[in-house]
């Protein structure tokens, strides 16, 4: 040990520092808490998007980031470009590992970064995970990532909401966390991970995850199961309804004309 200039006291401090830095999240798990209201979102006939309330507790002096992550899904998009002076589709771009929903909220005015390494949240982190293939070259990836964000943000499926979380100033004990995030009407049924990260001194000291379920109920659920599980019957039913409505309107108008 002396060869590296470390005495026992320094070694003890180093061990303590390593312990704090590499400490498993479970050690401080008793402090950070996260709850969702509601935990399950039901998509019925009159669903037009909703909001989900977040409540929790974090240790004093923390910054907080909450991410809402959907399942990664391959998406095929059409790239527009100019040919002979006219704008048109010039090829397909496959987007891999992009979640179908990505919202990031923070308690700070800007989405916080980490000291010494890239933050695992935010659009920059998302960019490092997403792969673009198809009708684009390597130098075009940055530009098309921005275009991809614009497309998703226009649908409300991706959003960065700095300052959307509030922390109470408790004199003692854990700080209360509150916030609200929007789920757009285009949110797909499925399970979403709501991940809370607690940051102190530029390091993640704790993480908590919660699952949020979005499911179809009532008439939309019935119709979706018919459409996906009995396509032929669904198609015939759709045609019969259309023909019947067409004739019904014909009869109604005929009757009206005769009077």
């Amino acid at each position, binding site marked *: 040990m002396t060869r590296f200039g470390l005495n026992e006291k320094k070694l003890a401090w180093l061990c303590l520092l390593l312990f704090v830095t590499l400490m498993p999240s479970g050690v401080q798990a008793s402090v950070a808490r996260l709850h969702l209201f509601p935990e399950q979102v039901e*998509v019925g006939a009159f669903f037009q998007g909703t909001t989900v309330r977040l409540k929790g507790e974090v240790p004093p002096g923390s910054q907080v980031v909450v991410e809402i992550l959907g399942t990664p899904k391959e998406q095929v998009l059409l790239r*527009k470009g100019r040919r002979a002076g006219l704008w*048109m589709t010039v090829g397909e771009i496959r987007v891999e590992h992009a979640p179908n929903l990505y919202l990031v909220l923070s308690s700070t005015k800007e989405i916080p970064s980490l000291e010494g390494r890239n933050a695992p949240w935010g659009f920059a982190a998302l960019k490092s995970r997403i792969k673009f293939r198809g009708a684009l070259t390597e130098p075009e990836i940055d530009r098309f990532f921005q275009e991809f964000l614009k497309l998703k943000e226009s649908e409300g499926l991706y959003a960065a909401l700095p300052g959307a979380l509030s922390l109470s100033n408790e004199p003692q004990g854990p700080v209360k966390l509150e916030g609200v995030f929007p789920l757009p009407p285009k949110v797909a049924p499925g399970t979403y991970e709501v991940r809370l990260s607690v940051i102190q001194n530029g390091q993640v000291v704790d993480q908590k995850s919660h699952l949020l379920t979005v499911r179809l109920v009532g008439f*939309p659920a019935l*119709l979706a199961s018919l459409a996906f599980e009995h396509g032929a019957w669904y198609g015939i039913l*759709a045609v019969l309804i259309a023909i019947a409505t067409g004739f019904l309107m014909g009869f109604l108008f005929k009757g009206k004309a005769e009077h």
Partner: protein
Amino acid sequence: MWNLYLPIAGNSINILLLLGLGGMVGFLSGLFGVGGGFLMTPLLIMVGIPPTVAAASDSNQIVAASTSGTYAHYRMGNVDFKMGLLLLVGGVVGGTLGVQIIKILRGLGNADFVIKITYVVMLGVVGSYMFVESLQSLRKKTAVEVRRAEPAKPSVYGRLLQKLPWHMHFEKSGVSFSALFPLSLGTLVGILAAIMGVGGGFIMVPVMVYLLRMPMHVVVGTSLFQILFTCINVTIMQAIINHTVDLVLAILLLVGSTVGAQVGARVSRRLKGDQLKILLASIVLLVMLQMLVSLILTPKLLLSYKGGH
């Protein structure tokens, strides 16, 4: 409050907006005998329906609008079933050929260029020709009537028609020529419709008027009859293969469109053939202009979802 969730489209849309869109397109359908797909699908995409769902559900609503329109025209004696069936058979053959052509073009990498250019050129040519012809016809009505009254000297085109085998008389349309003629024209329109990804009503109507020389009112009814069967086929195929027919969306659109189609059919009866032609020509030219502008101006987003027209 007025929003309804569309389970296959996966979005929530205002009911009144969809009823209004359906009504407007149904009115045009009843008035001119076009399916309205070339108008409705882009409008649905604009209000937030995924392109694939917009195209498939639109086909479903066209079934209702064309049933309503065909029925209304049938009562008025405006449907030539014999001609409609021949055009339909040709259309199915042409559609199948067109799909293969698109596959080859996609393989070569210039499918979209061909589609867009075909669209703009077809809309431009058809719209301009109909517009000019109807305008001249409206202005020189008397002269046209005198010319029609003269004993017609058969043109080269007319003589060619008479020489083809399988001669047939089409009572409702008041024309006689070979069955091969509507069959091959139906095939041609089918190819163009498949390339452009539309039902083809707006090409079929001018073909019936100018090449088959059918009276405008019979053209409208017969075109709707043919569109009805094309769209039944498309709806069932889309439901089985792609699961993209949204019944809620289609029902909202078809409630609007069937009422619109009835009103359109009534207005159509009150208007003269040339007035109808000039109105349709104006709409076709407007759509062409809108498409041309969208081709020239830089789009807001350089990425879009796959599918649709």
